[in-house]
């Protein structure tokens, strides 16, 4: 599975309150949530993000609340993948559980700039920067986590496990 899109780069500790502020948590409708994604960090993002675009960020992406609305909003906005130096642990679980691809790739984050055209191969963890002509590699997932990803999320994984 591959994805291609432009990079939107942000700093460290992008928290769930700026990904989707609590004032919009009175719904869990993905398209409603997508209308407000990253609104308090980059008000332009939600209007200019294109299908397949990728969020690239520093340490501790998704810190704060357990709201699954955060990865849902990002996914529903058409973002194909989040690449960060590290993820906050609840966001990490949530993204995997709902099938939003995430990659831990500190070197890639150092090099990538906003607007760079990226291509990601999820099966190999290879990130190609088409603008800069560079290739980076993401940290591999533990085998168990890979099984959840390959199942298409935790619900599908559990169905398989329960033999449903």
């Amino acid at each position: 599975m591959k994805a291609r899109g432009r990079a939107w780069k942000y700093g460290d500790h992008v928290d769930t309150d700026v990904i989707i502020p609590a004032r919009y948590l009175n719904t869990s409708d993905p398209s409603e949530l997508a209308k407000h994604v990253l609104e308090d960090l980059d008000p332009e993002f939600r209007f200019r993000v294109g299908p397949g675009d990728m969020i690239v960020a520093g340490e501790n992406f998704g810190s704060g609340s357990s709201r699954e609305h955060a990865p849902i909003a990002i996914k529903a906005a058409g973002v194909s993948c989040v690449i960060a130096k590290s993820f906050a642990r609840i966001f990490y679980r949530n993204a995997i559980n709902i099938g939003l691809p995430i990659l831990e790739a500190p070197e890639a984050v150092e090099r990538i700039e906003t607007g760079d055209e990226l291509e990601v191969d999820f099966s190999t963890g290879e990130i190609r920067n088409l603008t800069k002509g560079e290739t980076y590699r993401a940290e591999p997932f533990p085998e168990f986590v890979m099984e959840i990803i390959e199942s298409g999320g935790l619900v599908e994984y559990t169905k398989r496990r329960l033999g449903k």
Partner: protein
Amino acid sequence: MGMTMAEKILAMHSGKEEVRPGEIVMARLDFMLGNDVTAPLAIKKFRELSDKVFDRERIAIVLDHFTPNKDIKSAEQCKFSREFAREQGIKWFFEGGNVGVEHCLLPELGLVLPGDLIIGADSHTCTYGALGAFATGVGSTDLAVAMATGEAWFRVPETVKFVYSGELQPWVTGKDLILHTIGDIGVNGALYKAMEFSGEVVEGLSMAERMTMSNMAIEAGAKTGLIEPDGKTLAYVKERAQRGFTPVKSDEDAVYSKVVEYDVSELEPIVAFPHLPENTVPVSKASKMDIKIDQVFIGSCTNGRYEDLKMAAEVLEGQKVAEWVRLIVIPCSRNVYFRAMKEGLLEVFHEAGAVIGPPTCGPCLGGHMGILASGERAVSTSNRNFVGRMGHPESEVYLANPYVAAASAVLGRIASPEEVVK
């Protein structure tokens, strides 16, 4: 080789003799919870898996975030959760007059216990670490699967041990110990790890202050924040416990990824400046910066317990809130509210000019009942001061203990309790 409490609890619940950091285990859960924000999503996912919850007595649904219902959409989310709770016969369903802020309510009712393994679709589930439970926040999908199977997967975390020694100065509380710690290690200083709080100072804290500490483990990125159960813990749970439990302590020869020692004898009350809990400043310095404020919030799962309200009342007794400040006090549960009323704390707040709200998470997360306008500043006893946390993205939140919050309300600027109580 021994194990830490975190490792022992995970081993006990996954049918293993021992587990080691990095290992992934599938474990049986003692308890789980969701709220009006996270339960609706979990219920939808649950429907894909099952039509009956694994155990109706091991699930709590607490409608505490946007309640009393702040708007139609919130009311619909509550209605959806309520219908599910009724259909499934969920024993621990709380709303209306029975509701409290979930992480105050569940310990108070003896639903979360030492040695438990608990997940909650709320990041501050780590609060129950103060009782010696391995408790951690997850998202709605994890809760959905757990409601169907009674299980969740965990990567066994490394444990970092924090040892606090010395004698605390007046006005210094558990809130200051945890803010000091986060200020030292940073908001990702314990990412993916378990924190274990220990030492003579922690032993001397009330259960309420211990809960304040464990509550904010997530603000350092941690999975949970544990405190070994001792006589105080057992006395607290004994009169409440709704089921049996097995207290767990770390082995003498447990292996920690790091041990951090703090002598806190000189520690002052701490204020965390916008927009991260790690931006800590001692109150003696913060109070000299003439930071004018518009609002003070005393409440939340961090500092809304009876003991917290008592601290605030100690400073507010016989005082008036500055005329430009709105003081909002929210007792965190019906029992806390009632006790504060009977013992005269609500009268102190009333006389000082506070608004006293019903138990709710409300303003802490910018939900309702105290939202900030652009350019406004608040001192809050809650846990997060992120951009837009309590309202407009151009508002500011300063985190502090209840003494400092109360003193700031009186003087209308960030202030030390010493400036008010002579």
